[in-house]
């Protein structure tokens, strides 16, 4: 690719970017006008520092699963086993963003 073609290809590509962000800005304005802020803000993640105590003496701290050697008895048993569609959105406000960008 010579210098001119590179420049021309980039100009074309960046123009596409320009069109897409202009469209995005308009869409955002529309959402604001509708009062639909969910899309712009997403859902808050929980804070991880607090000063609460856990639920008593029964207990993560005393349960010990030794995974060295043969003592580890657990096997993965979640959606990794599933063949059906999971219906467990985790509520991070990501649904639209993902769908939109995947298509």
């Amino acid at each position, binding site marked *: 690719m010579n210098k001119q073609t590179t420049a021309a290809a980039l100009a074309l590509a960046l123009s596409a970017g320009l069109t897409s962000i202009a469209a995005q800005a308009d869409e955002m304005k529309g959402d604001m006008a509708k009062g639909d*802020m969910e899309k712009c803000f*997403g859902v808050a*993640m929980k*804070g*991880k*520092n607090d*000063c*609460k*105590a856990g639920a*008593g003496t029964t207990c993560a701290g005393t349960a010990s699963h030794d995974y060295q050697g043969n003592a580890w008895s657990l096997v993965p048993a979640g959606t990794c086993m599933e063949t059906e569609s999971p219906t467990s959105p985790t509520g991070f406000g990501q649904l639209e963003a993902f769908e939109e960008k995947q298509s």
Partner: protein
Amino acid sequence: MTIHLSPSYLSPGVSGHTALPARAGISLKPEHFRAIVETRPDVGFFEVHAENYLVDGGPYHHYLRRIRDDYPLSVHGVGMNIGGECELDIGHLERVARLLERYQPESFSEHLAWSSHGGVFLNDLLPLAYDQATLDRVCDHIDQVQNRLKRRILLENPSTYVEFEQATMTETDFIAAVIARSGCGLLLDVNNIYVTCTNHHLDPQAYLQSLPATSVGEIHLAGFAREQDAAGAPLLIDSHDAPVAEAVWTLYQTALEHCGAVPTLIERDGNIPPLPVLHAEAKQAEKLLQAQTENHA
């Protein structure tokens, strides 16, 4: 041994910071960011855990800025390791200092506890053996924090589940000595008094009366969970995941008579209910605060 110069910021009222109002506040949780910004509830103040906001950017700072602009703010640290045997983490102290410079909260508080050792953060408020060596260490650490932050801090009495053989002082004598030596104030956690006194078979009224009333800068109220020790005696856990218990409301009434109307926080860290539920608990505290103010007038 540190030389105590009693800088001016240790005198209440000349701290250069406005005090929290003698009203009821609630813990600021990310789950409520939007509801607060959108409904602007009439809450006396909000309190955040410092460590949750030691991040560079994003929604936490976006919302804290907006909420702080409209409400008084208390910053409550959970990781300073005031009671630690190791030296304070200077990097952490600096980050907290920058957070306070950014938001200029009306109050900063920490815990009478340790939470880190040997570079490992244990993410819990761990108990101290109340003896002279611990007293010296705690006072030195508070001096260091107050000197760096250039403000008087409040120290919270803990919930504890064990006592140490080596202790030579009661918890209340220890706290009174820390306050007298370091000039810090007291964050009186009424739920912690109830939990600790139940767990160690002490009289909560007597515990409360033996603390220096004029040093109390804030009160905390929260819920606890109920367990049993190995002998079947009640063992209460400071779980912050339930409404304030009836016995704690009663003790709060005594606390108000003891210290006067003091800014009071409804603390909730688990099973976070919708904002109006927490606000209703705050209103209940505010009723008692108002009654206290009127009785005094």
